[in-house]
């Protein structure tokens, strides 16, 4: 298979095209511009495909909503401030049970923040983000290769569960290049979508909507959504473990932070510190069960995020008061180094007396 050296943003775009994405709607924002630009170059002239640079992120997500109603595989991408604007549309997609893929290459916030990589949108992504009671599947890639693989998976999950799927990357993953292989040469023929609206030919007319003046009806819609979410929680949890078997201290980190943490753990192991890692790949659904299982043997957990502590709340929920958690975070788009994380890790390790 061919290896490519292209930016993470371009990897997502290429993988999306290979996954059969027919429509892309975007709006410029650093650090994800290469994705939009790749689509302008490679999707805009493809037979049956559409590329539009919208006048705003609000417009872009609503174009996705429309394309999804028409039965196409559609996606949009942005970075933190733009994702805030998309929340209204994501809420409607979730409510109408329409598939869509939304990429967030996170940058430092709040406000206009910085264009440097960050993980400050964990809450927004994993708690629905917009108004109303809903969830979106959230995938957290940590390498160029995973950007390719998870993009394919995002489209499949979106269609299977008829739900918006978020790929939660960051500016660093988007900008950097590393060798990547695409497992799919070209998009397969996708089946037509049963829900698509094209006109009531040979069938009764259909409606896609969320508004109802009857609270009981809305309650039933919410119950239906949550039956689906329970199913996703059962079926789709994904994570990676690294050297957990004999570990006394477990690092929990995702995305780019997990990658940095892995470097720190290698240093720790070189010093004979028994440290391992759990890396959630799906942030929602979150690997609660796996953490509980590990906590039967391990007492100490170390959460590392590039924010002031968001996923740590899910870890706390998972541990239900068992085990001890310490936290290290750098907000605002500062990129910590593996040596720095190793320093903090090893201090924790010795303070807890784990070396004895």
């Amino acid at each position: 298979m061919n290896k490519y050296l292209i930016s993470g943003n371009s990897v997502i775009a290429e993988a999306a095209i290979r996954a059969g994405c027919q429509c892309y709607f975007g709006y410029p924002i650093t650090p994800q511009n290469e994705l939009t630009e790749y689509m302008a170059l490679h999707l805009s002239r493809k037979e049956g495909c559409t590329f539009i640079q919208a006048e705003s992120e609000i417009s872009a997500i609503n174009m996705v909503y429309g394309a999804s109603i028409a039965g196409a595989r559609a996606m949009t991408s942005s970075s933190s401030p733009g994702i805030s604007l998309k929340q209204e549309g994501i809420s409607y997609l979730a409510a109408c049970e329409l598939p869509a893929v939304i990429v967030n290459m996170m940058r430092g916030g709040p406000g206009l923040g910085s264009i440097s990589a960050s993980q400050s949108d964990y809450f927004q992504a994993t708690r629905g983000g917009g108004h109303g009671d809903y969830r979106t599947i959230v995938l957290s890639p940590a390498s160029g290769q995973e950007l390719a693989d998870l993009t394919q998976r995002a489209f499949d999950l979106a269609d299977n569960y008829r739900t918006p799927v978020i790929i939660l990357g960051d500016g660093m993953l988007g900008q950097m290049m590393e060798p990547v292989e695409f497992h799919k040469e070209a998009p397969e023929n996708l089946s037509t979508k049963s829900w698509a609206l094209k006109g009531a030919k040979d069938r009764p007319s259909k409606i896609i909507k969320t508004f109802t003046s009857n609270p009981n009806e809305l309650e039933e819609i919410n119950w239906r959504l949550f039956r689906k979410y329970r199913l996703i929680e059962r079926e789709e949890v994904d994570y990676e473990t690294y050297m957990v078997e004999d570990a006394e201290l477990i690092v929990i980190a995702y995305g780019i932070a997990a990658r940095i943490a892995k470097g720190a753990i290698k240093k720790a192991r070189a010093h004979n510190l028994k440290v391992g890692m759990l890396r959630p790949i799906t942030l929602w659904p979150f690997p609660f069960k796996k953490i509980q299982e590990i906590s039967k043997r391990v007492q100490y957990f170390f959460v590392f995020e590039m924010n002031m502590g968001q996923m740590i709340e899910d870890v706390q929920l998972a541990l239900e008061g068992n085990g001890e958690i310490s936290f290290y975070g750098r907000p605002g788009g500062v990129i910590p180094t593996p040596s720095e994380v190793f320093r903090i890790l090893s201090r924790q390790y010795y303070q807890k007396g784990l070396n004895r």
Partner: protein
Amino acid sequence: MLIKTIFSGFGGQGVLSMGYNLSRAGMLEGKMTTYLPSYGAEVRGGTANCTVAISDEEIASPVASSPEFIIVMNQPSFIRFQNLLQSGGVFLVNSSLVNIETTRGDIEVVEVPATQLAEELGNTKVANMVMLGAFVKKSNLISIKTLIEGIKETLGKTKPALVDINKKALNTGYNLF
């Protein structure tokens, strides 16, 4: 083995292309590699830099907080990066355009008159390739053959007329020491 290198200079000096071609050659030799360009507002005002990591193992962070090698093509980059280099690191300086001396005694400074040599080859634009050739010899990270093959592939598609001069420039730099 994990080796990180920073390339820096004016936009237009081909700094990003040095890093990209090195990283790609690393990939062609089956190594792990990352390439991280500077981006956004950082590139306004005309400077550019990038970081390349090459390793036998997975690379934790593509950022270099204390790189083994730094290549500077102009004076502002010299000033900005000289203190970042790790102790014992190698500092490759485009001596045609940089005329100051380092204040550090714990690093190896290699002067490469890249712009002048490129001019002698008939095209100042290939100063970057002269420098890259010199770097390959100094660092021994990848083979010059892979690099030339790689550049033939990428440049051959877009600007085939320039393959020859780039190859010459790489060899000129490589054969300096």
